[in-house]
């Protein structure tokens, strides 16, 4: 008897659920809110000057960096209004790091740490080569988005930031990219 009742209840409840589901499927407006974590990075714009992320994605030498940015879920930072100066380590620069360190950083549970490493490569403001040269002369350290300061030096016209050499420079709509040959890692020396 008890068993029969239970079945009956289950059927009735099942009926309710199915009916309601059908009604909701039938209603006109989908109320799905898809606030993608990529934020502004999901904006499609083929006309404007390219932003830092778009340039990085188009560069064969920066596939590791782009992979890391995606893993850290911070694409939106690189498409924000800025202005930002981004030091973009090449794939070779990442290859120079211990492999286990890169693998560790790319693990989902270490997203915060990865984000910190990447953010250390971004400085608020537009610092072109002239501005960095000037900073080197004036011995002004560069304030990074993590709160760290990086030192800038100029040896015979080659600018180095935190011992990383600037290999080339690309202007972006929301700032500037300096391609560098080393990955910056947060350590007490930098703080």
């Amino acid at each position, binding site marked *: 008897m008890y068993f029969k009742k239970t079945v*009956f209840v289950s059927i009735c409840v099942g009926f309710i659920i199915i*009916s309601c589901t059908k009604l909701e499927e039938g*209603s006109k*407006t989908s109320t*799905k*809110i898809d606030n993608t974590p990529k934020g502004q990075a999901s904006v499609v714009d083929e006309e404007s000057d390219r932003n830092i992320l778009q340039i990085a994605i188009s560069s064969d030498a920066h596939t590791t960096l782009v992979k890391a940015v995606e893993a850290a879920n911070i694409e939106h930072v690189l498409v924000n209004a800025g*202005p930002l100066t981004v030091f973009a380590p090449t794939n070779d620069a990442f290859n120079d790091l211990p492999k286990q360190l890169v693998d560790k950083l790319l693990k989902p549970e270490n997203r915060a740490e990865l984000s910190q490493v990447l953010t250390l490569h971004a400085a608020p*403001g*537009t610092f072109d080569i002239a501005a960095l040269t000037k900073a080197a002369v004036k011995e002004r350290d560069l304030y990074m988005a993590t709160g760290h300061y990086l030192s800038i030096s100029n040896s015979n016209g080659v600018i180095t930031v935190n011992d990383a050499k600037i290999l080339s420079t690309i202007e972006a709509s929301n700032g500037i990219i300096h391609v560098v040959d080393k990955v910056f890692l947060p350590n007490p020396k930098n703080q």
Partner: protein
Amino acid sequence: MKNSIKHLLFFVSAVSLFTSACSKTDSNRGALSSSVAEDVYVAPGEHDDYYAFLSGGYSGNLTVYGLPSGRMFKEIPVFSQFPTSGYGYSEETIPLLNTSHGFIPWDDLHHPDISQTEGEIDGRWIFVNGNNTPRIARISLSTFETEEIIEIPNSAGNHSSSFVTENTEYVVAGTRFSVPVPQQDISINEYKSNFKGAISFIKVDPETGRMNIEFQIILPGFNYDLAHPGRGKSHGWMFFSTYNTEEANSLLEVNASQNDKDFIAAINWKKAEEYMNAGKFKVMPAEYAHNVYDEHTHSATSVMKTSVRVLDPADNPGIVYFLPTPKSPHGVDVDPTGEYIIGSGKLSASLTAHSFTNMKNAIDENRFDGDAYGIPIIDYDYSVGGTVEQAGLGPLHTEFDERGNAYTTFFISSEVVKWKVGTWEVIDRKPTYYSVGHIMIPGGNSRKPYGKYAVAMNKITKDRYLPTGPEMEHSAQLYDISGDKMKLLLDFPTHGEPHYAAGAPADIIKPNSKKFYKLEDNKHPYAVKSEGETRLERDGKVVHVYMSTIRSHFSPDNIEGIKVGDTVFFHITNLEQDFDVPHGVAMIGANTSELLIMPGQTKTFRWEPKKVGVWPFYCTDFCSALHQEMQGYVRVSAENSNIKLSWTLDGE
């Protein structure tokens, strides 16, 4: 047995539970049920289905809304100075507001109409009229900026405009207030013999949209109220409603309501073109401004015109006929087929539908009921194709859907009434809150309406919103008109006083919306293309500052050598080439507004420093993370000082 009763009870309660659980999504589809909320809900990040352009009335501006959400996206300055962008304040846009009366920084914007191709809205431009100092403006639906304003001579109270013909051959303007033509110093009592009503046909260049007054037709001194184009079979005709055929010049609320019927003036503009081509016009001296904004120089120019070509209907038979229409018609609306011309006699209880076919036959068969100043009056009984009897009180304006239905607003009885074209039967009526003026269905004044929504624009708000003191923004109401019965979906506030509106499916306009101006195309004489070109030039007491902006600084940002008594022009080019990244600029003590400069654009403001000192300027638009750092200084020295003109950025 007992058990089965129990089961039955359980089943009943389960079903009732089901009913109550699901009723929220299914029943009560009235104004307050949640399903109505869903009908207007546009999820965050999603786009509306339609654009709606609402007249801003006495704000002088045009507002852009989305439907069905009722969200306002933009206010486009047209006839009024607008500090939000610097329109009418920047040196480049001041000429747009020039008229034969000088610089007029305001007007009363009435009736937007979107350009058409083959009777369908094409989404290229929107035309609007200034009622007070008669003007017509053309707004680009690519930049959403005012590109051109032309003044209308021999006109006053430019109300029956700015409606386009079905291939945008012309945009028309008709005078609400008849005036002496040409203007002269005479007694107002001489109204009946000397006051005339000018109807203007303004040619629109099919490529550029540029306007030119092709001809005017001088009509009797009535009040010309609204207009709509013939379409399809009636293409080539334009219809104007009139009131005050009594030709009263005082206490019109009584004296202009004496005649049982006023007229709809039917103008055969193709016939008028023939007379123009045959040289049957007179050239009349006139003074009116034609102001054009160039997207590449980012600057407007104003040219004063000195004559207009005029056609007199007495010398050119067959261009104008009068259709008698009861009681001071306001709206004159043509159904999508072009067969019926609906007159909304605002003091009449019924609507009059003239048949275009009947009108043509009456003309061919000389079925006239006399004439007014030589213009034939068509016998009412021959032209009328039907009437909607006792539809409501105070009909004003009718729009149409693509299913043969018409929707008329009634001011006095505060309602929208749906009726069937051809059978003239009333199908539905819904109250509006309160005192509705115009109504708009996207494409509702074209061969191809998109009859999903209707927007009713109300004059009175009262208790519809949280009170905001004695003055309330007017309210609009959105109806779903896709079913047999209209359904009220939404109230939303409008800006200024919307007199009329035009709408279009988003897909017609959205793909053409410009993202930014290309710097390489910038032909402004004071533009700079890079920071390297920024500089100052002095010419006597005039100083030109060639300045640039890019995230997040001005170049130059330190200026010295300006003197009291100088006139300083700041020409600022925004070097950004990125969608939606304007920079602003404001200077302490400048007798003007801030400017908002779009990427790739150059704008200029004038500053006449009156005090010695060091004066800052700054970016007014939160452009970037370092916006608050975007500033500069100008040192102003005494008039007789020897400080040399100099400018720097970061000390260089």
